[in-house]
């Protein structure tokens, strides 16, 4: 038997609490001098207790250095009059929070972020679900479905920078979309999608929807494929229509995935920076200003790092509310 020796070796190395207690008791009556068996036993126990901490220490230290310390520093900065550009910062309590929360630009950014985020997440869900159901149809062959799956999934493969450049070119007043609109007689001089204050927020939201729906689609498709056929057969036997099957079988079965995805997407989308920055920069005027661009400008254009930290802490708190819901939901699932 080849497995016997390792099992035996493992058994010899792993001691149960009773065995440890027994060995302690046995060592109690022995000599106590330096290098004695009892002292070796203590040092061995100490090392054993430290062992798991030593193994997790690289990750723990990384987490502390790269996450907890910076977050702590940013929270600390938010209570100072200004930092980094000011060598002698002073504690100002909640003054920065009052300033940021009463700033009209912050209100604009918060409003825009809410519209952008809620619309994006809603559309991601609807589009993702629709495409997932199309791809889950038994009417198409597997090869056809693979082709459509690849096409529908393409937007997810592009990085934000590529998405931004691509849509800037497409939506340019001299771009392809305007060429089509003018050629078809739907517009006289083209539409300034990103530069028109009345259209810019809708345009960047559309781009974000386009870039983000495949993630929902793939997750929901996996969920759809996991729904037992029996449920649909039972519903059919009970006389349920397609619509009733959708509402009473499909949606309840997908609900855990939908809730998780929506919470994650709310957190991600509310922090979207690169797409906004590379398409409109928060303009025209301030119609696409988001909390992320507002914070960035405070830090790197105005060099008000304390105010930027305050804004970032507010965003962190808002995200944490969503994160709490997400964690609770995950626990409830487990």
């Amino acid at each position, binding site marked *: 038997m080849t497995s016997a020796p390792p099992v035996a070796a493992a058994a010899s190395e792993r001691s149960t609490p009773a065995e440890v207690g027994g060995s302690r008791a046995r060592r109690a009556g022995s000599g106590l001098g330096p290098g004695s068996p009892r002292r070796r036993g203590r040092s061995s126990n100490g090392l*054993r207790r430290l062992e798991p901490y030593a193994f997790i*220490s*690289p990750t723990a230290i990384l987490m502390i250095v790269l996450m907890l310390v910076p977050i702590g520093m940013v929270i600390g900065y938010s209570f100072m009059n200004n930092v*980094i550009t000011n060598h002698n910062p002073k504690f100002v309590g909640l003054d920065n929070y009052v300033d940021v929360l009463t700033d009209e630009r912050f209100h604009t950014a918060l409003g825009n972020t809410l519209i952008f985020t809620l619309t994006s997440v809603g559309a991601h869900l609807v589009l993702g679900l629709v495409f997932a159901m199309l791809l889950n149809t038994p009417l198409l062959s597997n090869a056809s479905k693979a082709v459509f799956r690849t096409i529908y999934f393409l937007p997810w493969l592009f990085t934000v920078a590529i998405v931004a450049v691509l849509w*800037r070119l497409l939506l340019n007043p001299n771009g392809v979309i305007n060429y089509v609109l003018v050629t078809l007689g739907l517009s006289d001089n083209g539409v300034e999608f990103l530069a028109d*204050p009345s259209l810019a927020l809708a345009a960047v939201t559309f781009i974000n929807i386009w870039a983000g729906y495949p993630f929902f689609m793939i997750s929901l498709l996996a969920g759809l494929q996991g729904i037992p056929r029996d449920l649909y057969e039972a519903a059919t036997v009970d006389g349920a229509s397609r619509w009733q099957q959708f509402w009473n079988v499909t949606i309840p079965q997908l609900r855990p995935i939908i809730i998780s995805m929506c919470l994650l997407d709310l957190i991600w989308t509310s922090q979207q920076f690169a797409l906004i920055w590379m398409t409109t920069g928060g303009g025209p*005027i*301030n119609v696409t200003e988001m909390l992320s661009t507002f914070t960035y400008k405070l830090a790197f*254009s105005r060099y008000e790092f304390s105010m930027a930290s305050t804004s970032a802490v507010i965003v962190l708190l808002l995200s944490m509310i969503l994160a709490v819901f997400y964690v609770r939901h995950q626990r409830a699932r487990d």
Partner: protein
Amino acid sequence: MSNVARFRRVVATGIAAVAAVSMIAGCSSGAPADSNGKVTIELAQWWEPELPKGEFQALIDEFEKENPNITVKLLSGPYASTKEQLFAGSAAGTMSDVVGLDGAWVSDFAKQGSLADLTQLFKDNKYDDSKLASQVQLDGSTYMIPVVNFVYPMFSNDDLLAKAGVTAPPTNRTEFAEAAKKVSALGGDTSGWVLPLSSEAPNGIQNDVMSWVWASGGSMLKKGKPDLTNKDVTSAVEYIKGMWDDGSIAPGSFTQKEQDKVEEFTNGRVGLMIDSLAHINLIRQNNPDLKFSISALPAVDGYEGERGIPYASWGIGVSESSKHKTEAFKLVEFLMSKKINSQLSTMAKAFPGNTESEPDFSDADPLFKEAFDIYKAGKPANEFVGLPVSEDLMRQFDEQFQKTLSGDQSVKAGLEAAQKSWSAEF
């Protein structure tokens, strides 16, 4: 537990702990030490990557040959990285001895006490500053010297202008507005003038809007404070608003950046633009068939005075935290000397910061020579240099300007709002 097993456990625990400690150690770096009695100074800049490979290093080698006791360590990176590096260095008190500067950063660095007072260094080193074309000063002290300048003249598409019946590049505002209107009237996707106003990179306010003020001898400041409601600025904004209402400006202005402007011009879709000379080669490379010329910025009709031309600089300064200020200043003096400044401006296709230096444009595009003549006939003008949070000032103005162009507010109301927000920064 066997001795071997215990040994293994101790070794494994030790390795894990050492790995953790070395990760932290890996995050820090030791300071370089001087050797052989030589002084090593650092020069942080974004110029080397923008020059032909090896040319800037060759100048530094020449400096080291002339000053055998000084070694120069070049810290080169793109513009944005250099900016971040300098801001971090300024905060931590670890700025390089000599630093490449943009005029827009000077006020903030000087306020933080990160830059040495060059006026004092001139005195200490008995340096004659009369040959410097310009100096960036705050409260009477110089903190930055423009080493080379990149000017922003007017570019005109000769073919488009001819097609629109305009025989020569416009020289005053009326001619410019008429030319722009005629080119736009050609139809299709052509427009008279391109005006980038993206709030991501709001330097269009400096180069394409305020340049109209400076070209006619006007100013946006009064005794160093904002004066945006004066007649010069009002007239320039009303003028641009007029062209906007006429439909003479290319669509998409509110989100266009400098590269979009160059692209529109290069593709022959706009007749006129105000742009950096540095883009001449790029335009030639991307559209060799494009016929274009450059001229001085049009001024108010009848204006005979000296025309201001917007410019951007490769500036230089010395760190206040440098332990080798004398050696650092020697490098500044070297780069500003007649011969070296001529060489550097030739390499960069820019104009020298030393008034006695002459760039050699014999091998360059003939437009550079023309531009140099325009430069010498006018004066470099950029009032944003040395202002606090200058990029944010441009962005604040941009927001009000966009509202004005959109018709959400009058020119007067827009300028008053911008004046109010600017005043809060001073």
